[in-house]
Each structure stands twice: as structure tokens, then as C-alpha cells.
């Protein structure tokens, strides 16, 4: 068994879901995503036992393109994140009715397929294909099943698509240029290249454009809040939980090792851009009236910090970035789900119309509170481990980066708790709020369990990712 099994399960799952009809679609999709999760856990075991689970087959002879999937610790960690979040996301949508559900759930599985492929591919072009493929389903999910005014939604989604496609096409150009130098798209061959500082600068920039738009890093973030707000909650979860991690992961896997000289030379600029995102996102989040938009901007702040940590080029920075990616993936899915739970009952996302839920729904309140606290990195949650490592690595570069980046915790605590106060506390709302159903409770419980477990015991993940991060650092520091 090798890593291509997960991809096959997800791809077959996507088609099986589509052909299973509207009634069964959600269950079939859940089944296949759980199968993919099981498969990735088995593969993780095999990997830890020292088995070779990578694949390499030649695909196109001229130009030389291989079907190469390489599973190292970093890739597997991201695959596990995707495989764990996909069933949660699908399960969380069980309370909603979607028109044409078979296409909806089929697209979700197809997107999971493409994202898993992105995390595994070790051939530049295969990676690019998966990267682009992931864009098509989310476009349709946001366009067809999104909410709000159709005209505005259309604008937001098209802007998102053109932005991301524009960025990735420059990445493609960079890949083709690297191919003409190396004669192969395989990542090992690309790592061996000795590029001049000038070439590295342009390649770094081309990759940066693709990733900065996807992550998003300031000033390429303008698509984000609108799309998060307009997309259906499932789409928002996919985007914020997994898809933006594709950008962060790619920074570690492709951008830094391929252009290390440029990465070192311009380190401060890119860290500063990341930190700028932290401060900007936090301040804008303070002013938001729409719950989903507030969460979108808080997400912008968090990923800015992760991006800044990635550009430090230290082991702590990279490790913190990966830990925080996983932690943020879970917490953001949980928070958007909480917003959806409220929406199902109150039919609004406007914070001003909420309030007074606590008295009616104590279970939901406590779960929401744990998520909010995890999001502001309270000790004993997984996010604390990630955020602390990240800030520590920033302080090694320059103490001011850590101080400015630390505002994410202070400002984050401020806007998140204020949001919690307005949404949940206050006088009992005149509108009835039914407590969480069993299905909703299970989704919350799983997310919270993961966050708390790894908050106390992050060692399995650090052990998994550290060797591959060390390899990447070796490539970066080879000269």
C-alpha cells in the first residue's frame, strides 16, 4: 500500500457520491472521507515502521514529467490534517439541506482529492496540476451554494478565481524556467540546482505571488473576507481550514528550498509583511459586525503570523509554523461551525442581532468558549504550543518582531472575547435557541478533543515533522 491509495479512495469517492443520488450523497461522502482517514492512519503507521510508501512512475516522456508522490513527515502531517478535517466538515453539514446535494458533496471530495495531491506531489508539474485542480471545485461550491446577493457573490468568487489563477500561472512560469535548467520537474533535481542570486530573486517572487494570494499575505488579501462571507460554511471551512494551508505548506516545501539565497536576503521584508497582516487583520476584525467576516479577518491575522514564522528559516520557526497550521486548521473549522450553528437557529450572521444565548444553551456556550480560548492561544490548547513556538522563533530573529507579532494574542483576546460577549452573553434573547443536536455536538467534541489532546501532548506531531523540516533546512543552508 502506498500514498496513492488515499488519492484513489477520494477520487472514486467523488464519483461514487455524484452517482449515489441526492439523498444518499452526504452519507456516501462521509463514508469515503472516513475511509481516506483510516487509510492515512494506516499509512502513517507504515511510515513510522520504516516502510517506503512513496510512489514514482514516469508519466510524460517529453518534457519529462513523473507521477511522483513523496510522503515524508511534513507531507503526511498535512495529509492527516486534510483527511481528519474532511469528514468533520462533511459531518458538520448534515443539518443543512443543499440543492443538488450529489454534486455538492462530490465536489467536496474532489477538492479533498486535489488538496491531498498537492501535499504529496514531489514533481513540480504534478504539484501544480493538483494545486490548480483544487481551485475549480471551490469556485463552484462558493458560486452555486453560497449565500447573500447573487450578483455580489459572483463578483467576489470571480475575483478570487482570477487572483489565485494569476498567481499560480507565474509559479508555472517559474517551474518551466527551472525545468529548462534542471531537465526535470522532480523536487530532488530542482533542489540540486545552483541558481544565481538574480534568478533566485525572480523565482522567489513568482512563487511568492502564488502563495501570498492563496495564504493570503498583505497586500494580496482583498479577495479573502468577501469570499469567506459569501461561500457556504462548508466552503469557508475548506478554504480556511485546509486550502490556505496549501500556500503555507508550499512556502516550506517549494519556495524556501528552491530560492534560499533570496529567502535569506529578503527575509526581513517578508517577515514584516506577515506581521503587518497580523496587526491589520486584528484591527480590522475589531470593527466587524458580521460574524463570518470577523472570523475571516482573525484568520488573516493568524496566518500572517504563520507566514512570518516560515520566513525565519529557523527550525523553531518552521516547526512552529507547521504546528500552528494544524492547530489553526482545527480551530477555524470549529469557529466557522459555531457561526453556522447560530445561523441555523437565528438566520443571521449579524453580531448585533445575537446575544443572550448562554442562558438557553449552556452546552453550546461552553464548547464555543473553549474554541474561542483555543483561538486566542490559551495555554493547554494546541494553539498555545504553536503560537508560542512561532513567537519564540521570531524573537530569535528580532525581538520587535515577536513583540509586534504577540499583539495577535492581546488583540485577538480582545476581539474574540468581545465577540463572545456580544454573541453569547447578555440578557436572555427573546428568540428561542435550541441547544446543540447530537450531530453538532459530535463535530464540536472531536475538534475540541484534538485541540486539547495535542495541547497537552504535541510530541507525536513534532516527532513526525521535525526530520523532514531538518532536511528542508539542510537544503536551504547547503551553500
Amino acid at each position, binding site marked *: 500500500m502506498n500514498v496513492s491509495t488515499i488519492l484513489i479512495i477520494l477520487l472514486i469517492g467523488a464519483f461514487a457520491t455524484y452517482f449515489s443520488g441526492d439523498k444518499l450523497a452526504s452519507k456516501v461522502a462521509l463514508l469515503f472521507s472516513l475511509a481516506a482517514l483510516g487509510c492515512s492512519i494506516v499509512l502513517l503507521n507504515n511510515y513510522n515502521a520504516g516502510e517506503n510508501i512513496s510512489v514514482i512512475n514516469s508519466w510524460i516522456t517529453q518534457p519529462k514529467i513523473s507521477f511522483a508522490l513523496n510522503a515524508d513527515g511534513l507531507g503526511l502531517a498535512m495529509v492527516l490534517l486534510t483527511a481528519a478535517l474532511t469528514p468533520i466538515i462533511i459531518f458538520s453539514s448534515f443539518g443543512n439541506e443543499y440543492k443538488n446535494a450529489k454534486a455538492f458533496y462530490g465536489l467536496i471530495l474532489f477538492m479533498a482529492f486535489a488538496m491531498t495531491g498537492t501535499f504529496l506531489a514531489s514533481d513540480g508539474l504534478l504539484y501544480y496540476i493538483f494545486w490548480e485542480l483544487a481551485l475549480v471545485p471551490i469556485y463552484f461550491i462558493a458560486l452555486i451554494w453560497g449565500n447573500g446577493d447573487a450578483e455580489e457573490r459572483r463578483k467576489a468568487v470571480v475575483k478570487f478565481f482570477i487572483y489565485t*489563477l494569476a498567481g499560480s500561472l507565474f509559479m508555472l*512560469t517559474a517551474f*518551466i*524556467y527551472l525545468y529548462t535548467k534542471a531537465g526535470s520537474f522532480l523536487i530532488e533535481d530542482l533542489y540540486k540546482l545552483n541558481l544565481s542570486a538574480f534568478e533566485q530573486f525572480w523565482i522567489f517572487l513568482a512563487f511568492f505571488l502564488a502563495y501570498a494570494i492563496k495564504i493570503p499575505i498583505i497586500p494580496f488579501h482583498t479577495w479573502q473576507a468577501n469570499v469567506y462571507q459569501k461561500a457556504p460554511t462548508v466552503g469557508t471551512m475548506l478554504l480556511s481550514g485546509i486550502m490556505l494551508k496549501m500556500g503555507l505548506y508550499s512556502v516550506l516545501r517549494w519556495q524556501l528550498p528552491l530560492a534560499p539565497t533570496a529567502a535569506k536576503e529578503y527575509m526581513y521584508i517578508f517577515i514584516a509583511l506577515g506581521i503587518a497582516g497580523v496587526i491589520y487583520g486584528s484591527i480590522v476584525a475589531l470593527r466587524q459586525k458580521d460574524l463570518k467576516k470577523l472570523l475571516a479577518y482573525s484568520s488573516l491575522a493568524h496566518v500572517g503570523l504563520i507566514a512570518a514564522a516560515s520566513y525565519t528559516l529557523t527550525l523553531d520557526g518552521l516547526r512552529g509554523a507547521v504546528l500552528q497550521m494544524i492547530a489553526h486548521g482545527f480551530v477555524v473549522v470549529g469557529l466557522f461551525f459555531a457561526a453556522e450553528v447560530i445561523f441555523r437557529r437565528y438566520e443571521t450572521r449579524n453580531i448585533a442581532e445575537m446575544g443572550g444565548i448562554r442562558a438557553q444553551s449552556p452546552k453550546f456556550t461552553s464548547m464555543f468558549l473553549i474554541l474561542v480560548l483555543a483561538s486566542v492561544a490559551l495555554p493547554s490548547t494546541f494553539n498555545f504550543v504553536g503560537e508560542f513556538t512561532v513567537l519564540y522563533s521570531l524573537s530569535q530573529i528580532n525581538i520587535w518582531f515577536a513583540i509586534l507579532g504577540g499583539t495577535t494574542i492581546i488583540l485577538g483576546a480582545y476581539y474574540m472575547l468581545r465577540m463572545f460577549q456580544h454573541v453569547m452573553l447578555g440578557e436572555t434573547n427573546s428568540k428561542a435557541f435550541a441547544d446543540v443536536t447530537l450531530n453538532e455536538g459530535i463535530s464540536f467534541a472531536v475538534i475540541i478533543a484534538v485541540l486539547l489532546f495535542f495541547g497537552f501532548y504535541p510530541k507525536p506531531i513534532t516527532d513526525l515533522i521535525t526530520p523532514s523540516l531538518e532536511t528542508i533546512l539542510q537544503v536551504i543552508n547547503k551553500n
Partner: protein
Amino acid sequence: MNTLIAITGLGIFCLLFEILNLRKAIVPFTILGLLGVLAINFCEFGMEQSYYNNMITVSKFSTSFSSLFIVLTIFLVALSHNFYHNHPTKISDYVAIKVFLLAGAVAMVSFGNLAMFFLGIEILSIALYVLAASDRLNIKSNEAGMKYFLMGSFASGIILFGICLIYGAMGSFDISEIHESALSAELPIWFPIGMILVVIGMLFKVAAVPFHFWAPDVYEGSPALTTALMSTLAKVVAIATLFKLVSGMNLIASLDNQDLLHTFEVIVVVLSIASMSVGNIMALRQVNVKRMLAFSGISHAGFMLMTLLTVSASAGVLLYYTAAYALSGIAAFSVILYVCRDHDNEDITNFHGLGKTNPLLAAILTGSLLSMAGIPIFSGFFAKLFLFNQTIQAGYIGLVIVAVINSIISVGYYFKLILAMYSKEPNQERTGRPFLIYATAVISIALNIIIGLFPSLVLDLLN
């Protein structure tokens, strides 16, 4: 050679069917006949031969492009059945003209002599003029035919004039003789001038900027099936012929003078950039789908012109690009034919809500547009990839960056159509599931995806 004879024979049979009153059988019969021709053509693959004093030369290049043309013609003939539903008495004429047009197309890629080249181009063009004006009671179709005929005959005249000058310089119409004499040190100035005139004529047929003005009007005015033919088959034939002319006459080697070579490269780069940019920017503003695809075709012509910079290595890339482009074009046009069959225009509003009323056709049109835009797994992406790879290897990284920017622009108008299908409410009932249209659409998009998944199938034919 046998291919050409078989095609012509098939065309005559089509005419006989009219006399024998077997009109109902004509479409299936022609499709079977063309499949047979395709088999004959496959048998010729790999044989390097020339016939009739080198008038026709059969090479890998000619056979593989001929196969593509035959496949496209099969699709176009299959679409005829429903399209000429209201003119049952004329269907054999229309089908026969398409088959003869194919004969011209095959002659154009397998010529060994400039006389044969001109003969091919005229067979193709005259068939196209007739088809453009074939809806004779429609004033728009008349206008399109007239316009195309006037402009096209000018282009043919220019080509003929260029051929005369080449003859004056080289003393021969024979490609291989011209090829050899082009290597000699002293060349009369008439040779490059003649070549330029021939190339201008061909650029007109390809509809590259600045010789593109006829395309939008003619595409819009012609009957939709003729537009499909022009934008897929005719364009592909013209670009393949242009490529064969430039490589076959050894134009690059003959320009041993560095200044001339440099000028040639600059001209190709400028024309390619101009075609891409003008085509894409104009397409953004169109509301008529046929007109939009006309401009999109102009921009694709710009992409395909990039192969002229690396003639010695890029025949396979050109074959792949043309196949990807034409197959997605056929898939798109079969959906357009279905959607607009009862309308006198092809405006985007006709496509509103297609995603709800006909999900399959909407998915196919989406797929073909994504392919044209260059989104992976569709062959359009690999076509662009191989083209960019080839061009960067030759050192034209600036040109590739312009092409990349153009690909981004093109997403804007391709997605306008996708948005109309999925995010607008349907404004009409669409009934009937014409089998041949569905089959053509499904098969062509499937072929598109197959050569996307296994690009080596096509790419390695000419490498």
C-alpha cells in the same frame, strides 16, 4: 496519397446519394466512410513517400495532421444531421462540401509543390465561402459569405503573387528544391519578399492580428455549424500549413544574414503578442458567444504562432496544441448548436440557467472552456505548458510572460459564460436530447481529457 483519393471519392459518393434519394443515410454513411479514411490514413503513417513528381509528399507530419482533420470532420458531419434539419433537401450538398473541404485540408498539409499548396488552399477556401453563405435567406449569412469571399480572394491573390516571386527567385515550385537552394549563400531578395507575401496570406487565413478583421463578422454571420468549422478545422489547417511552409522552405536557414533572422523573430514575437492581446481584450466585451469565440480564436492563433520561433523542434507541440484547441472547440460548439438552435442569435442570455436544465451539456461546455483557458487535466493546459516550455528553452521568456498574462485575461470571458450557465435562472424550456449532438459533445470532451491525461499519445507522434 491514398487518403486524399479516398476522401475525394467519398465526396463524390455523397453527391450521388442525392441522386439516389438516400438522404437519410448520408450522415451515417459519411461518418463510416470517414472512419475508413482514417484507417487508411493510419496505414500510411510512418511511410515517407512522394507522388506525381513530388506534388504530394506523405510524411509523419502530413499523416498525423490529416488524422486530426479527419477526426474533426467526422464530428462536424455528425453535427450536420440536426443542424440541417430544416433543409433536408440540401443536406447532401452540405456534407459533400465538407468532405471536399477536408480534401483541400489534407492537400494543404501534404503538398510537395507550391502549385499543390495553392490548389489545396483554394479548395478549402471556396468550400468555406459557400458554407459561410449557405443560409441563403438570411441577410447576415449573405453578408458573411460576401465579406469572407472578398477578403479571402485578396489573400489568395497575395499568396499567388508571393509564389510567383519565389519561383522567380528559385526557378522552381518544388519544396525540396527550394529547400536546397535556400541554403546557398547568395539569395535574390525576391525570395524573402515572396515568402513574406505567402506568410501574410496565410496569416489572413489563420486570422492573426493585424489580418484578423474579417473573423468576428464572418464568424457571427455564418450559420453556427460553419462557424464551428472555421474556428476549429479551418484555423488548425491554416496554422499547420503555415508551419509547414516556414519549416519546409527552410526559411530560417535561408536567413543566414543575422539581421534578417532577427527581423523574422521580432515580427513573429510582435504578431504573436498582438494577436493574443487584441483577441483577448476584444473578447472581454462581447455578448455574442460566436463573436467571443472568434476573438478567443484570434488569441489562440497568437499562441500557436509562437511555435514558428522554434520550427525545428515544435511540430509535436503544434500538433498537440491544435488538437487540444480544436477538440475543445468542437465540444463547445456542439453545446452552442444545441442551445441556440431555435434562436436567431447566439447571445450569452441564451445560456442562462443551462446548469439547471441540462447539467451534462453545461458540464461539457464548462470543461471545454476550462480547457481553452488552460486549467489542468484538460489538454488545453498541457498544450500551453509544452508551448511555454519550448519557448522558454529557446530563450523567449518575455514572450512567455506576456502569454501568461493573456491566459489570465482569457479567464475573464470564458468564465462569463460559465457564470451565466450556473448563476442565472433559466429563461426557457429546453426539450429534446438529440443523440448526435450529445454524442459529439461527450466524445470530443472525452478525447480532450484523454490526451490531457496521456499527452505522450499525441506529442510523441512527431518527436
